[in-house]
């Protein structure tokens, strides 16, 4: 299972790099989303895939009974997903605003803050 997921992470990263090399800002953002999913999967796989029950401790016990899943990577991934969600919501709205005010999504044409030197 680990190998399979590693291959999946590889495919995700490759796809996202391809998308991020595009000049279109929206494609870049889609690539970024894929890359962040790849990162989340990496954490998940790095925490070892431990099949088992959810790590809940029954009433009266001090430790979970039997084999349970590693909760820490899940907590980390959940946090990362939530943060990623916030960041991408912001980034998408920013791309939308950029399209409205700059009239383009081509990153090569975004030169307002750094105008080309005039060659007179």
């Amino acid at each position, binding site marked *: 299972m680990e190998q399979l997921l590693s291959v999946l992470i590889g495919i995700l990263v490759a796809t996202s790099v391809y998308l991020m090399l595009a000049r279109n800002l929206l494609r870049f953002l889609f690539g970024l989303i894929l890359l962040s999913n790849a990162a989340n999967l990496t954490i998940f796989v790095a925490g070892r895939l431990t099949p088992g029950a*959810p790590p*809940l401790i029954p009433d009266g016990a001090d430790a979970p009974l039997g084999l349970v899943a590693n909760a820490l990577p899940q907590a980390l991934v959940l946090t990362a997903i*939530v943060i990623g969600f*916030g960041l991408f*919501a912001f980034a998408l*709205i920013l791309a*939308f605003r950029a399209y409205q005010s700059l009239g383009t999504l081509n990153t090569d044409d975004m030169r307002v803050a750094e105008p080309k030197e005039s060659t007179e």
Partner: protein
Amino acid sequence: MNSIILVAGARLQVVLLLVFSAYMMLRGHNAPGGGFIGGLIAATGFVVYAIACGTSDARKALRFDPANIAGVGLGIALLAGVIAVFWGDALFTGQWLFIGATEDSKGIPLSTVLVFDIGVYLVVLGAILSITFALEEAV
């Protein structure tokens, strides 16, 4: 959107989803659930309502500015964490109050953890609604 079915259904759905979200939040201490998920479910209710009846109606139904809801929620969550200091514990240590506790039953357990969850609930509800309302109004 001018669909009578959707409008009529949405009103019912908001109520159901709000009740369900409260259930999810309270359930969260010992089972899957919690403030985050509860907040998301509640936000879904209002988002459906906004799609059916428009954002201005949804804002009216919500009564408060969603951004303010999120701000208050953050304040509640922070307060729930800071309160532990008054009992001499570390920040964000859970403080428990067992109402009607006897030898063999714990009574009704109340904790700062629940207060924190309510704060999270409000933050998620407010934040999601601010984003979706703003987007729906802009597009």
